[in-house]
């Protein structure tokens, strides 16, 4: 049961080969049996999940099933869930039970999906390893001494460990793609504005975007069909038309032009990872695509640009956590100032506080033009690089990360080393483009991810390329040894 894809589960449920209660029970039992080694979930409500599954079974029996009726889905603990704790990996929201659903959650409920649980993440999605979670680090199912990546590391580990058939994540600078690469699964960050941000705890509002994480491009397409679309309650959500992302999965790649940015294959890329990527590109060439060398000349500036814009927006967004209306409040505040400053000292972890301070500095009087405005200008140059490339090519490809998953603790005390992990993914968020990570091989039994970057709102093309690649390769079907045992 637990090795079936979302597409197979949908078919099986429709044909009544098994029930949603059986499927959901299997995954809940696997979480209970195996998640002590991954720490991929923060909250699981078995009774609520089984009740939702029973409701789904009634709908299916009545021939009233929607697209994902009865499919259990895990959600990153950044999406507000009505009546279920939404911690965002932080002590600040450890006691926060939202009184409403995020639009993403609402859409999955409407589609009939079963909310399996809420997954572990870096605190407020700030990190690349899921080590900054208040609930302890998540671990990589391929080797539990390694990080699963982050910030959506819990979602990636849950899918890779076969504790959920699919999950949601969010990506502000690589937080879907990097953990997908590290855990050997498929993840898609859609175009900025493609998926509603309502009820998704805000980190950097001009960069944040939610997307699907699953074993295959086909499963990601099934989830994106539910997630994508305009939301009048999110004023930055796009009104651009959506499409059926499953409809074009099988299209031919003949004539497809794939751009390879020189900057993504140079200094800093691990040799064995580079070999995996070059083999993957040969596979795409064999499928009819043409490889074209392109250049993204401002690549060297993406990390500094991101580390002004993201902290600046974070410092503004996180000012809402004041100990007054919801979330953590310090004990025995002596006055209002003490209430604010001590609540935020005790409620936030080190990395979150660091970014708030950097952002506050970048936005403070006298420094705004030198930092924030400058970064916004360079951001336009970075976006323009991509627009110039897309004059010549249809998609861009390269590695998702400079190397495979690293050991727990290896970078947790060195913020800048951690920031460098996202060197190939940050620019996609700055430019607002859709990006994917697709399993493309292994280095010492550690998964490698191939990154695909598309034009704005061209998710269907990325999914098409990834699907055709997955029809010719087996990387996405491999499972780690640690998933053995446990309920089937």
């Amino acid at each position: 049961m637990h090795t079936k894809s979302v597409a197979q589960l949908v078919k099986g449920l429709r044909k009544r080969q098994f029930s949603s209660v059986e499927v959901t029970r299997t995954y809940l039992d696997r979480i209970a049996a195996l998640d002590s080694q991954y720490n991929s979930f923060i909250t699981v409500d078995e009774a609520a999940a089984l009740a939702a599954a029973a409701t789904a079974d009634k709908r299916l029996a009545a021939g009233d099933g929607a697209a994902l009726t009865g499919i259990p889905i895990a959600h990153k603990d950044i999406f507000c869930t009505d009546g279920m704790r939404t911690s965002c990996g932080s002590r600040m929201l450890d006691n926060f039970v939202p009184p409403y659903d995020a639009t993403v959650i609402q859409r999955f409920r409407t589609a009939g999906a079963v909310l399996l649980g809420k997954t572990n993440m870096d605190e407020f999605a700030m990190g690349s390893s899921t080590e900054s979670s208040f609930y302890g680090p998540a671990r990589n199912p391929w080797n539990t001494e390694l990080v699963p990546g982050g910030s959506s590391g819990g979602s990636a580990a849950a899918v890779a460990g076969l504790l959920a058939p699919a999950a949601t994540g969010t990506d502000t600078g690589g937080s879907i793609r990097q953990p997908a690469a590290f855990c050997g699964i498929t993840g898609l960050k859609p175009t900025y504005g493609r998926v509603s941000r309502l009820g998704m705890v805000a980190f950097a509002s001009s960069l944040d975007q939610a997307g699907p994480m699953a074993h295959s491009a086909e499963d990601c397409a099934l989830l994106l069909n539910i997630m994508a679309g305009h939301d009048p309650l999110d004023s930055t959500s796009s009104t651009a038309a959506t499409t059926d992302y499953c409809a074009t999965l099988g299209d031919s790649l003949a004539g497809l032009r794939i751009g390879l940015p020189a900057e993504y294959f140079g200094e800093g890329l691990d040799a064995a990872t580079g070999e995996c990527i070059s083999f993957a590109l040969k596979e795409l060439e064999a499928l009819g695509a043409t490889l074209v060398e392109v250049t993204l000349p401002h690549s060297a500036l993406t990390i500094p640009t991101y580390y002004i814009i993201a902290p600046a927006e974070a410092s503004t967004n996180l000012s809402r956590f004041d100990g007054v209306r919801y979330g953590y409040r310090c004990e025995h505040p002596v006055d209002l100032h003490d209430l604010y400053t001590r609540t935020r000292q005790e409620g936030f972890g080190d990395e979150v506080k660091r970014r708030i301070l950097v952002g506050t500095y970048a936005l403070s009087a006298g420094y705004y033009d030198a930092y924030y405005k400058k970064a916004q200008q360079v951001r336009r140059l970075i976006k323009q690089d991509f627009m110039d490339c897309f004059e010549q090519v249809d998609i861009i490809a390269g590695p998702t990360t400079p190397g495979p998953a690293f050991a727990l603790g290896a970078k947790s005390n060195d913020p800048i080393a951690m920031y460098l992990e996202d060197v190939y993914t940050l620019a996609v968020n700055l430019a607002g483009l859709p990006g994917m990570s697709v399993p493309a091989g292994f280095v010492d039994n550690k998964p490698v991810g191939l990154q695909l970057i598309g034009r704005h709102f061209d998710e269907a093309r990325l999914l098409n390329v990834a699907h055709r690649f997955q029809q010719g390769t087996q990387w996405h079907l491999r499972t780690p040894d640690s998933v053995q045992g446990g309920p089937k």
Partner: protein
Amino acid sequence: MQLYQPQGFWARRKCDKFTPPAALRVASCDFITMAIKQDDIEKIAELARIRIADEEIGQVTQRITEILHMVDRLQAVDTRNVEPMANPLDAVQRLRPDVVTQGNRRDAFQAIAPAVENGLYLVPRVIE
């Protein structure tokens, strides 16, 4: 970590021949944050309403300084005549008719507050 050496397939595409344009090769730049002091961090922390313990302030100052130095390389980039980009799609804020669309859910929102009384949020006394 052993670095990737382009060969065969890659060498033909000359990906190894790439050098960044001169403007981006930042050997040294004018660090506008050259001398950030503990005092500055304390001021920022006050603006951000985050208390920092005395024994942590030295380490926090060092970390923030490292990050600000890392981002300082932007200062060397020529951005004359480049319009700042706030939204990646250059979208502007959409307006909607000024009508009530959401019901009043004060009770639900206050049910999760640390302290409320008679429909009001409670905080320590501000005015004696």
